[in-house]
């Protein structure tokens, strides 16, 4: 990679054309341009992220539960995974009412992330801040509601005046906890997902641009072998990171969902 950049630095009229930043953050409107309901590619991904699980679940539930189809087994496996690996360990006793929320979160995020590797889209829905922020605010509102509903005022008191801390430190720790739980938590929750997906997207863009640039320069340059190596390296990197992004997309959906479960669990059960 360094050699390739050095060759670019030599000049000879070569150029690396990076896409403008608008291509990452702005998409042409399909309809409703410049209105609050402007519908673009990101919104289309959101629509598909609703339609896909809806169709999957509807087709799966049409299958007999006595002799379930492969699709039904797949859907039941997803639900079981969310129950056993996210809801139960994150929330603990009384996790059942939150399974629909966590299933929605996981599938909405995971499908939204997988658009990164789907032709025509090639952009994860969560590489835009709006979606992670909405989801994080939903989780934030829910865990605060659950906390007050189950623990009453004690929920707030235990955060701002923690009993397990030495009295002299309670004001400081209470302030930090209040700031952490009620102010920072939704933003850290959202930015963790958003930043991971945007970074992965930028990485794939970088490799793609390098492939195009090296391919165009191989014939013209005197250092064709080095450029060819750069092209092959970039191609391997692009393929590898594309596969890696699939894993990252699923893992980020899991992380976001389990954090939501942990936040709800901490509100549902008083700290011992």
């Amino acid at each position: 990679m360094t050699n390739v950049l050095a060759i670019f630095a030599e000049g000879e009229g070569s150029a690396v054309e990076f896409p403008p930043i608008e291509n990452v953050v702005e998409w042409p409107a399909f309809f409703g341009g410049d209105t609050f309901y402007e519908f673009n590619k990101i919104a289309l991904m959101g629509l598909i992220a609703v339609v896909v699980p809806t169709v999957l679940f509807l087709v799966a539930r049409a299958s007999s539960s006595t002799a379930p189809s492969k699709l039904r087994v797949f859907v039941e496996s997803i639900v079981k995974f969310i129950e056993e690996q996210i809801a139960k360990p994150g929330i603990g006793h009384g996790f059942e009412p939150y399974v629909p929320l966590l299933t929605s979160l996981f599938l909405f995020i995971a499908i939204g992330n997988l658009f990164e590797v789907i032709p025509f889209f090639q952009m994860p829905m969560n590489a835009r801040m709006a979606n992670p922020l909405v989801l994080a605010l939903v989780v934030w509102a829910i865990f605060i509601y659950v906390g007050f509903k189950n623990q009453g005022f004690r929920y707030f008191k235990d955060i701002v005046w923690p009993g397990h801390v030495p009295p002299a430190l309670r004001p400081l720790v209470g302030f930090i906890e209040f700031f952490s739980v009620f102010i920072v938590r939704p933003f850290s929750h959202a930015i963790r997902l958003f930043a991971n997906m945007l970074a992965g997207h930028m990485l794939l863009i970088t490799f793609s641009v390098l492939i195009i640039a090296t391919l165009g320069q191989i014939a013209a340059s005197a250092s064709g072998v080095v450029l060819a190596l750069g092209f092959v390296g970039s191609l391997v990197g692009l393929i590898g990171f594309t596969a890696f992004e699939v894993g990252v997309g699923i893992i980020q959906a899991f992380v976001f969902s389990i954090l939501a479960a942990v936040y709800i669990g901490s509100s549902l059960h008083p700290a011992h």
Partner: protein
Amino acid sequence: MTLPITSLTGMLALSEEASETQETINPVLPVGFEIFWSAVFFFTLLALMRYVLLPPIQQGREERAARLSAGRDSVSDSDSELAQILAAHKEQIAVAEAEGAAIIDAARAEADGQRAQAVGAVEEEITKLRSNAQAEIDVARSTALAGAKGSVSQLAVGAATKVLGRSVDLASNQSVIDSYLNSGS
């Protein structure tokens, strides 16, 4: 917007220019209409998942688990019932074998008795036949011996008459002849 660069510093210039672009287009800040659609789609999915999509899947899974559990219980009951039936059958077989053995023993005893009775009757018949045969033999021998005695007496008297040259009376010497013959037999 495309950014031709001819050196590594050119790439840095790209990032600087991109930073200038970020003044007007911030890639981090959310946009209103995207927030709107995200909220619409997510709450739609959440409502569908809560009321339409998830309950049948969970219910079907639980029903299947209940059926499997009931099936296991039924199999367990069947195993228990089978064991009871098997034990009852074994008991019946044991009783039947005992009854069979008793019948066989009784039959064997009865057969032994009948055989002994038959053998006794046959032996008695044989003894009787043998006794009769012996009596007939004795009678025949006595008859033959009596006949022989008469002939021998005649021959002895005739021989004695020739030897002595005088007539020997059979009647007066009959006792001597009989005594001789009896001592020889």
